């Protein structure tokens, strides 16, 4: 009788094991192999790939840029997402369902199509620069393609729904009467938002940040299209090592380092959230 739950989850577990755990383990073991330009992958065990990544400032720069982009994306998602979620929460039910559709809209479009759309907008001869030049506001095009800023802009657009939904969930958990209570005590709408609503949705902001940060740090398609060869992030570097240099073991080591560092950041973040807000708000 006790075996039944196991049997029922077996298909999902098989899928999970075959498609995630096996490749992950293979990548893990691959990262200890060595690579020769003429010999290809050699079945040896050493830490040389890790040593190479850690000791090369080139890789430090890429990791630094990746986390800076992820952090900036998280920041802007929170900055835009929190007010957006609050507006959503205050809307009438009929308007709310329309606005929810608009909010999750970006998720309905393929990442490549959406990113190419941004490329059309941001290019030196793109829509934004052409418009600004035609109005005479700028003389020379502002460089937006192939910059970290452009990547942050596009990633914020994609990941904003995750932040909005996380904060919205936190808003729905709170007692709706607290805002009325604050109002009756003489608080103005902005004060109510800052002093009463915002502190109560911080757990939502933190969990939304966790999702956005980890997805931004490992995003590939957007930085690949908008960053090109010049603005490399970890995910595009791994891609290049695998498919251009054909140095699979080095690519595997970079991938493992990205996985490990994102996990460390996520766990540390989660502990912070739980320690500070675990019981503060039921």
């Amino acid at each position: 009788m006790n075996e039944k739950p196991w049997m029922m989850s077996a298909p999902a577990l098989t899928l999970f094991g075959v498609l995630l755990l096996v490749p992950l383990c293979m990548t893990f073991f691959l990262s200890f192999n060595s690579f020769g330009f003429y010999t290809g992958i050699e079945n040896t065990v050493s830490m040389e790939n890790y040593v190479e990544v850690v000791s090369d400032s080139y890789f430090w720069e890429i990791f630094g840029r990746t986390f800076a982009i992820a952090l900036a994306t998280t920041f802007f998602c929170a900055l835009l997402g929190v007010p957006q979620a609050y507006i959503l929460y205050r809307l009438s039910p009929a308007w709310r369902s329309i606005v929810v559709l608009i909010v999750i809209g970006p998720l309905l479009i393929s990442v490549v199509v959406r990113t190419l759309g941004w490329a059309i907008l941001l290019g030196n001869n793109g829509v934004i620069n052409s418009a600004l030049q035609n109005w005479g506001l700028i003389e020379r095009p502002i460089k937006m393609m192939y910059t970290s800023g452009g990547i942050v802009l596009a990633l914020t657009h994609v990941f904003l729904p995750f932040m909005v939904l996380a904060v919205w969930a936190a808003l729905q958990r709170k007692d709706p009467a607290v805002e009325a209570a604050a109002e009756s005590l003489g608080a103005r709408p902005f004060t109510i938002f800052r002093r009463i609503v915002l502190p109560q949705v911080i757990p939502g902001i933190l969990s939304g940040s966790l999702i956005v940060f980890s997805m931004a740090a490992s995003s590939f398609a957007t930085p690949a299209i908008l960053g090109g060869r010049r603005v490399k992030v970890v995910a595009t570097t791994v891609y290049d090592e695998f498919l251009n240099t054909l140095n699979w073991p080095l690519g595997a080591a970079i991938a493992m380092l990205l996985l490990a560092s994102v996990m460390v950041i996520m766990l540390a973040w989660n502990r912070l959230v739980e320690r500070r807000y675990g019981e503060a708000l039921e």
Partner: protein
Amino acid sequence: MAFLEAHGLTKTYGETNAVDNLTFTVEKGSFVSLLGPSGCGKTTTLQMIAGFEDPTMGKIKLAGRDLSAIPARDRGLGIVFQSYALFMHMTVAENVAFGLEMRNVDKAERKRRVADALELVHLGHLANRYPRAMSGGQRQRVALARALVIEPELLLLDEPLSNLDAKLREEMQLELRRIQREAGVTTLMVTHDQSEALAMSDRVLVMEKGRLQQEDSPFEVYERPRTSFVSTFLGKSNNFEAELKSVTPTASQLLIAGRGLTGPSVNLKPGTVEVAVRPERIEIVDAADAVITGTVRERIFLGAQWMMNVATPLGDMLVIRRNAGRREAEIGDTVHLSWAPEHMRILPLNEVAA
């Protein structure tokens, strides 16, 4: 002059009138309850006084000034919400200080007034706790202190005791009344609990379907209900139809189940009326004195009293008898019931019931 006045207050949602032409006044310093079943419009009335809802029609005046143009945050009312609506991320003292902060009260003064308010509700020792670490009764007191610290002209209580368990509720009734009296604040409480309203209020406003049914002291509403609804909503009552034969300034002649009876005078025209008799006013008598005769159908012993359900030609009647240490009628026994004429309430016939 009345302190709080509502004139022709009406709130319409779509086709229905949640509150229908409500007019009442509250005297300064008194404790008044708005009592009624859920959906009777009492909460909507409170929301309009608080400023969270705009009346469709009518006026609210507080101490002579019209409230309609004043937003909720500037009305300066103290409100205790049903859920307490405490700020969970702030300590008890921070919760209580919030209203003073919004009024730019300076720090020393703020500290003193917060301490006073917490002392009033007997929570001085818990000032630095967070609400999550407190019991329901303590949270209730915090909510009360937070509402009273701003020295409101009017305190509004929205079902303040409904989230507490029975024993605590009784305790808090006395406590709430003490605090209200000490603070001397005019209070309007919304409740669906008739015993709560009777126990705590100076005056009770009974509402049904958005309309005011009766406004009186607790004793008067219980003793002299003016409508069939009020007689059954407050306490238990035996209501039955009777024929009003004639009325004089001092008495009335009734025909109840074929028997002529003299009752108190009433301002009604002869015809079919409804008569209400409280179960504790019915006596068991000898056959010769009986108004009506019936059979005991059920009998419950409650310690201090007996409760009996007697099947009579007028329908089932509830009889409550004080336990005087004697044997009472058994189930199946025939009993003769009677009541003094002055304990009859003659009401206009309730079209809805019957």
